[in-house]
């Protein structure tokens, strides 16, 4: 406990962030407390719910299961980096139009998960997409509108 803090620089949404954290501090807590990026939420802290999903080098990861000290030299993307100024990202726009969120707590995790899969596989089929979205938990929507939203975003984002 109360171990020495380690100084490191994270790259979050393209910007360098100098932080000094205990080695045991999770990436999620570091993003929230040391970078002020509270859009990444903690729903279980044991890697099941996916509310804390961020992208590390474009791969979705549970930021509650990573330590910040593992993250120097990688590109981290969070929900705060999705919109282009006032203009929502197509996946955000789709969630808005298709009522893909209610309380909004799991939403940042789903947005990041969906972003990663649609960027990597713009032509992913419905069944596989459902399977990917089953990685995260939502307690409000019953998933139907999340799936509809991601379908709409897929059609929108397809090059």
């Amino acid at each position: 406990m109360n171990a020495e803090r380690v100084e490191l620089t994270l790259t979050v949404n393209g910007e360098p962030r100098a932080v000094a954290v205990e080695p045991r501090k999770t990436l999620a807590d570091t993003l929230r407390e040391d970078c002020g990026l509270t859009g990444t939420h903690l729903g279980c802290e044991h890697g099941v719910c996916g509310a804390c999903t961020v992208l590390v080098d474009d791969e979705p990861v549970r930021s509650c299961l990573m330590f910040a000290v593992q993250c120097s030299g990688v590109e981290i993307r969070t929900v705060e980096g999705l919109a282009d100024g006032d203009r929502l990202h197509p996946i955000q726009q789709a969630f808005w139009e298709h009522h893909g969120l209610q309380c909004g707590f799991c939403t940042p995790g789903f947005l990041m998960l969906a972003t990663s899969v649609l960027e990597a596989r713009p032509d992913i089929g419905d069944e596989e997409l459902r399977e990917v979205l089953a990685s995260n938990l939502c307690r409000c929507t019953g998933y139907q509108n999340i799936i509809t939203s991601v379908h709409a975003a897929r059609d929108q984002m397809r090059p």
Partner: protein
Amino acid sequence: MIGESVPRLEDRPLLRGEGRFVADIDLPHQLHMRIVRSHAAHGTITSIDAAEALAVPGVAAVWTGADVADVPPIDFRQVGADQMVPYRQPILAQRRVRYVGEPVAAVFAADPYTAEDGAERVVVEVAELPPVLDAAGPLGDFDERLDTEAYVFTEATGDVEEAFARAEHILEAEFRVGRHTGVPLECRGAVAAHHRDTQTLEFLGAAKVPFQNRDALAQMLGLPPSRVVLREAHVGGGFGVRGELYPEDVLVALAALRLGRPVKWIEDRQEHLVAANHSRDQLHRLRVATDARGVIEGLEVEFVSDQGAYVRTHGATVATLAAAMLPGPYRIPNYRVTGRVRLSNKTPAGTYRAPGRYESTFVRERAMDAVAAELGIDRAEVRRRNLIGSDEMPFERGIDALGTPVVYDSGRYETMLDRVLDHIDYSALTESLAERRAAGELVGLGLGFFVEKSGLGPFAGSRITVDGSGRVTVTTGEASVGQGFETVMAQICSDVLGVGLDSISVVHGQTDQMSYGMGAFASRATVMAGTATHDASEALRQRAIEAAAEMLEASADDLVMADGAVSVAGSPAQAVTLGEIASALGPASPLARGRPGLVAEEWYTTSHMNYPYGLHAGVAALDPDTGRLAFERYVIAYDVGRAINPMLVEGQIVGGAAQGFGGALFEDFSYDEIGQPQATTFMDYLMPTAAEMPDLEILLSEDAPSPLNPLGVKGAGEGGTNACGAVVAAAIDDALGRPGAVTSLPVTPERLHAMCRSLAATG
């Protein structure tokens, strides 16, 4: 605007990561609280050693029961009774611990990691006592004087003895619903500060019922209510669980007062699963008397509700609602029910979406299926014969719930039955399912008819103000748990005032912004706050037109209101905007006549609830190799009187159904033989994912507007959940060709697999 599926006002910040949930709130110089919880299900605390914890650098204080013995237990918010008073929960265990997870000590430290370090070093010794783990079994001891039966009540209508004496058929059955609960994705939390300059305690992160909790906290802490301010932030799901007053909330407030620093507490998931309210967990025994046609003449029910270790804020709410709503949409003229609220050494229980109704719908619809099977009558037909007719509305049940007589305000039940049977092409469907079963498939149909309740009073208020820019603010004392409250209030206001939704702000859950408030429970927000907002909007419209008449030197009768302005009909150039009217109504303006501002406040009061109703129908295939039950179709018909925003209503129904399936198939707070909880992570407490959810077909109807409010609305929050357990059970029975096979929930894949094996073994 009313009736349009407009996208929500709430969404933009939530989509951009700009929400402000309780964990996102920090106050300067704050301490972090971590709770030390009982590791034993039942026992006497023999010692608590905090010396090592206090030695951890950064730990500021450790409290045990002795430090807070002067604080009273948490009182009932609803359905209390004198008999239950001794069973209330202290904020830290006093000598005895009664469930694994019970708060025993609180550690306060400079950061959350250090608080956990400290908590790990608090050593609690417990001399264990035998736990009570089956509330329906023999009673145990709560303490030296009291046993574990906290409350017993009976409700009755008609002449049950006479009905059984002349019955053609009498059925007996026993049904059990397991222990599961809301589990919102956001865990609980609170941040409190005592501002010494104003002697005011500020409590952030309130939810659901901020005004009632303000009053309760003030009373427990000996403060005037006017010096306690509760503020709601974004709330990550409610479902009945979140926002009740819990021991941890009181500890945060008390610590802010006593330690002189702001205090923050954020629960983790493992804590949540053993500390926040559980729910359901009822065992029903019933006798049903019918005539030769399957019409139920008499129903006698006795049930046990496993309340867990203490009676919390809900008192006997869940048991009361189970008793009152058990007869559902059926006439059942002679009915007697006895409910027993019993304690056990499990996490205390409270309400969860469709409280008492999820359970009683399972029981009633199982019984209806049993009558159909026993008498050889089609399941839809036996329901039809028992439905209350639309010409019998309003229908007095003859019993009370939540302090008000149960009077169904409106309903066209048979119309709904016909619509659903048409939609699924019932005759053809049952034939095709029979053919598929004959070919070896395990596939079946379930039906679950129910009545919900909503719009619990007795009041809600709404104040509408317009500022000099023309922006409209709707302020209520009600609450949002993420269901779309702001959008719905804005739609109702916009419908009357004709201003765009993006010109309307909605304030809720701030106890210093409104004189009274209740909150977001019992599917009441749209009904109660919606009606108040409608009335206040009408009053504001009137006031704007009167002021505009003077400003434009026109007759009020010639004025029209649209697009945020009042103009003379037929000459749109002669107009004043709402902002101009608001500016012209300053306190010193002759126009104001002592009533400054473009503002109106109205209060809606009612002593009655209203009663939405619905029918679920599901077709499921059972995989005997994996025990997986997959719904090929699942239809939910629900009548909400009038849908303000159909997209949001459907969202409520689909989301509610996911929770209903969870409790029917997967979610289960089981305990081992010494009372250790077995589901303390999301690897053991299995909530449905996108992979388990069928695509639902929603048939939203507006056949029976409520006569009790001007909008005709009924609540939409709970109908999606209500009948899932009943339909899952019925579909399994049908798939197995074994009527009455399922008598308890959840029917986990493991249980289903075993049922399939036993079916195969016995042929």
